[in-house]
């Protein structure tokens, strides 16, 4: 079986982001970029499924500018077999990303698509669900455990009240939650090897899908700052403040 893993290049999770003064967006010039953490988990899961023999080929795909090829090389170093770079300098929204992925699914015919549950920049948490709807196939979102048995997949999902287990036929789309696995680090020999793995670039226009944005971002502003309060010296002082000043306990 072939697996398609969709990944995204985002501002590194350990970078403290800065809102531009003119409120036009986030400062991304000269900011460290990395693979979205949930996408790393997606790549890792694909590699583990291949190591277990449930998967033969892993195709990593991303959409974006030329720099996104670095992120694809990371996926190749982690164990993906080949990569597809859908090139565009424009912002593509989740709906457009899902349409591009659907076009690639039609070409590649994977048995499974794995992606992160959300990217840590736009925090939308929707592309995987949208792709599943477009493929008219089952979805398992926020998964913490995946088992493949022939053409059926069992997934444990993290839901608000606990865990839920679903069984579905393939093809399917799954989105990863944090506890699915702990991604490995790419070894130096694998990073070298990744440079020779195939990486195809397709201009986005060649896929024939409409990715015109539907949203206008009117402004991006700083959230209301919360200022530090006071330090109390003892439990007695704390409880006194909570009872008589904040009035939040009795």
């Amino acid at each position, binding site marked *: 079986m072939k697996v398609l893993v969709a990944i995204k290049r985002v*501002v590194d999770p350990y970078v403290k982001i800065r809102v531009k003064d003119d409120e036009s967006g986030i400062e991304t010039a000269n900011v460290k970029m990395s693979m979205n953490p949930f996408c790393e988990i997606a790549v890792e899961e694909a590699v583990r499924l291949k190591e277990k023999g449930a998967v033969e080929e892993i195709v990593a795909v991303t959409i974006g500018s030329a720099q996104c090829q670095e992120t694809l090389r990371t996926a190749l170093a982690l164990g993906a077999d080949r990569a597809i770079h859908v090139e565009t300098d424009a912002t593509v929204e989740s709906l457009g990303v899902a349409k591009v992925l659907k076009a690639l699914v039609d070409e590649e015919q994977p048995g499974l698509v794995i992606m992160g549950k*959300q990217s840590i920049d736009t925090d*939308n948490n929707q592309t*995987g669900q949208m*792709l599943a709807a477009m493929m008219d196939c089952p979805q398992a979102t926020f998964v913490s455990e995946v088992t493949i048995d022939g053409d059926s997949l069992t997934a444990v999902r993290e*839901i608000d009240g606990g865990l839920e287990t679903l069984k579905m036929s393939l093809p399917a789309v799954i989105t990863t939650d944090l506890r699915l696995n702990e991604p490995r680090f790419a070894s130096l020999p694998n990073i070298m090897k990744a440079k020779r793995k195939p990486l195809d670039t397709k201009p986005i226009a060649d896929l024939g899908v409409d990715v015109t944005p539907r949203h206008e971002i*009117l402004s991006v502003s700083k959230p209301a700052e919360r200022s530090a309060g006071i*330090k109390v010296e003892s439990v007695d002082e704390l409880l006194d403040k909570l009872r008589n000043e904040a009035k939040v306990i009795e």
Partner: protein
Amino acid sequence: MSTLVIAEHNNAELNAASYRAIAAGCAISDSVDVVVAGSGSQAVADTAASATGVNKVIHIDDAALAHQTAEAVADAVLSVAESYTHIVSAATTFGKNVSPRIAAKLDVMQISDITAVIDADTFERPIYAGNAIAKVKSNDAIKVITARSTAFDVMGESGSAEVTSADAPAYTAKSEFVGSELTESERPELTAASVVISGGRGMGNGENFVMLERIADKLGAAIGASRAAVDAGFVPNDYQVGQTGKIVAPELYIAVGISGAIQHLAGMKDSKVIVAINKDEEAPIFEVADYGLVADLFSVLPEIESKL
């Protein structure tokens, strides 16, 4: 202009988050209908009809909807969604699972996790784990929206809407529900509690959470945890407060042994009063706390319990 709110429920009870989704719907338009898609879920439809602000409840009852799978619920909602300009659900794991599927079928770009309604087309939503707020205008004819529960106040139960029934669309099961393991607790639900007490890596192990439980029992509080405490295996994942866990905004949030990573702050910084207890006085959690106590939690927690 009219809004359809997707009810979240377990076929017996309407989830508290649905009242907040209804409140978000009322902030968008004057006419708010609710769709209850379930199996043996008449009680839920009746409850939804009594929620303040609801005009009409559309009840779709079918065995295929028993386990609320995304595929079945999305199809059911779409079968009654034709005349609405806005389709709203709470940004819970249920809403996040179902709503984008509906958006894709309607060929619209969802507006996720809104925290404010500016007008019928324009909304505010947090991005970058709440470190920035985007004001977004949607140019789609139909707006599919998930609403962050903590941003919209429950409006009460003074409604008396009519309940109408609709047939479920023909459905071929795409996925099968195998089972669930839900956390049983007498305590209030984390996102609905007025007091939350959370433990971090500083708790040392899962057994020590008993100290938080004793205080929670006295305060009627829910128990939460940082991602570090969850990753260390102290408590289950559904305790997690933060960017990738639950977003809470109680009257009182008590952070114990939590350093205050950005991703945790994203989940609790809208709480009304924040208390931080940590032995490291440099911990970033103190930068957002109204009351900070620099102390060893193992001596302080029993003292708090005894003095409540």
